[in-house]
């Protein structure tokens, strides 16, 4: 596959906009409210592939679910083509035809008692779309299952992992959506099968002008297919930019650490952070990353004279547009310096 520039752009009307989104969950057993998303801005243009990257507890899955309408925000809003999401039954159902989901575990995502045909036909049936079998055939072909008819009567347990994921993708495609949200689309699959599924996603973006939002912890996946990369930590966006900008010239200490532990990146010394991501019910004061920040611990922040800010001043929330940005007191506001 030849190299090509990013197809989508945010300059034109964005397809999905997230505006100051806050999503909270009631704490368990007396714990405080968990702020899974604590103010997030995001804009995704038509035909763009955006990767949401972070570890567990960062809020990327919550953000994806909020965009799908599965979680109601405590404040802020999600807009689809300029219109805020309606959470009523009918509005939500109509929305489902335009924004679909591909889940992580293809084995769990398919009802073991449904055949492939029924699994893919479910969407069209629920929405009473015409020519159900035609849609199923088309969706299966688009997802790379050919000839589709041969697979109609198969059960999920008779398929391989890669084939199951294609069936799940076909199920989403059967509704002719404009946006697909993929949650870890290849992490449960064998390594050699990964490439094909990712290539399929790229192909779908080209042929069907699909907009893709991919939630993943895998930076390599982002490098393979994403136009833009959004790094999240503890409910906030900490870095945002094109994939080249963020991965070739990371600005935020968290991004730098994540990048350094990727096994393929051995030219960079591994920065292994201590401890684990704290509970989103107990967010640290000031910069929420400072207790684990290598720049803070090594004295770099002290030397730059901003250590106090790290401890006590909360960083401003990054806007949805504006090039390569990072939420860190060490990084000057506005666009990051152009890479050498």
């Amino acid at each position: 596959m030849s190299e090509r520039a990013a197809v989508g752009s945010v300059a034109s009307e964005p397809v999905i906009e997230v505006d100051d989104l806050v999503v909270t969950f009631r704490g368990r057993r007396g714990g405080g409210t968990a702020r899974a998303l604590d103010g997030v801005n995001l804009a995704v243009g038509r035909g763009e592939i955006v990767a949401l990257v972070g570890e567990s507890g960062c809020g990327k899955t919550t953000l994806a679910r909020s965009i799908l309408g599965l979680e109601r925000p405590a404040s802020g809003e999600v807009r689809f083509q300029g219109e805020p999401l309606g959470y009523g039954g009918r509005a939500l159902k109509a929305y489902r035809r335009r924004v679909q989901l591909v889940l992580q575990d293809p084995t769990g995502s398919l009802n073991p008692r449904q055949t492939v045909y029924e699994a893919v036909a479910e969407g069209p049936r629920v929405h009473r779309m015409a020519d159900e079998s035609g849609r199923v055939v088309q969706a299966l072909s688009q997802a790379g299952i050919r000839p589709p008819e041969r697979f109609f009567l198969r059960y999920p347990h008779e398929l391989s992992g890669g084939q199951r994921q294609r069936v799940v993708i076909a199920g989403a495609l059967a509704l002719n959506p404009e946006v697909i949200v993929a949650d870890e689309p290849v992490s449960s699959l064998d390594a050699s099968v990964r490439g094909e599924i990712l290539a399929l996603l790229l192909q779908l973006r080209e042929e069907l002008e699909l907009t893709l939002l991919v939630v993943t912890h895998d930076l390599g996946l982002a490098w393979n297919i994403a136009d833009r990369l959004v790094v999240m930590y503890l409910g906030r966006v900490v870095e945002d930019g094109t994939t080249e900008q963020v991965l070739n010239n990371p600005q935020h200490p968290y991004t730098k650490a994540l990048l350094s532990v990727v096994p393929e990146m051995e030219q960079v010394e591994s920065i292994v952070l201590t401890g684990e991501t704290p509970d989103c019910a107990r967010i640290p004061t000031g910069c929420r990353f400072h207790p684990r920040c290598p720049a803070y611990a090594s004295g770099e922040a002290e030397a730059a004279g901003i250590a106090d800010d790290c401890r006590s001043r909360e960083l401003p929330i990054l806007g949805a547009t504006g090039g390569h940005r990072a939420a860190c007191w060490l990084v000057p506001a506005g666009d990051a310096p152009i890479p050498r």
Partner: protein
Amino acid sequence: MRRASTVTTPKKLSPYAIARMRRKKSLQRFAQAFFGQPAGVIGLVILSVFVLLAVSAPLLFDREMLDITETLGNESLEPPNGDFWLGTDENGRSILAVLVWGARASLVVGLAASLISMVLGTLIGIGSGHYTGLAGSALQRLTDWFLVIPFIPLVVVLAAVLGQRGLGTIVLVLGVTSWPGTARLVRAQTLSVEGRPYLERAKVLGDSDWQQMTKHVLPNVMPLVIANTTLTVAIVILSETTLAFLGLGDPFLDSWGTMLDKATGAGAASTGAWWYLLPPGICVILVVLAFTLIGRTLEVVLNPRLGSE
């Protein structure tokens, strides 16, 4: 485990034909597995005998043979002989006739009450598992409330309230006291199914609550319900027998329980009239055993599939 399936489908197969083919195949697989279990086969055979007897009761013995006004001429409590294979009761009725007609009564009550129990239990179980929040909690509390009601006092109360202890009352009582067991089981299974990604996928595809529950939860819960219901039938029949034996049953209904009640009332134990006491008792045991064997076999046969998913 992955197997290369060699099913080839002709083009342009309608969705209904596909669904039918699938159902036929799975039914064949199920039948094969079920008949491979000797316990299940034995249970099925025993049950079939009784069902056959119950269904052909009017052909074997006239209804009038149960009418005590017709049997005044017979000897009472006569031991088995050429005319009456199981002897007679205190009113001179052929015990065999009463026994066969009693099979009808017991089976009908058992099946009717179990049907109520299955429908109610499944509906409320799935509902309380699927709906979180107030509705789900309410249904849960309802289940718990009914779970602790003892059926014997309930019969007495209902009989007083409804004014008569007919067949309907018995079926109602038994249905009402056995559904909570099914409901709790179904709720647990519903919760486990709800946690699986394909329910979330159904939601995202646009399925309404009702569609989610009927298309995804119900098929995965049904095997458990069926296995559980067959066991419930056994319990219900025993319960009906108990009620009748305690004199709380329908006095005009000739079930095995009433036979036992009348037998003890007529002093069959002290006079040694074993032909009156033993047959109904043995029949109850056999039918309950049959249902239990079938129920257990169903669990074993349906479980591996549940387990591998």
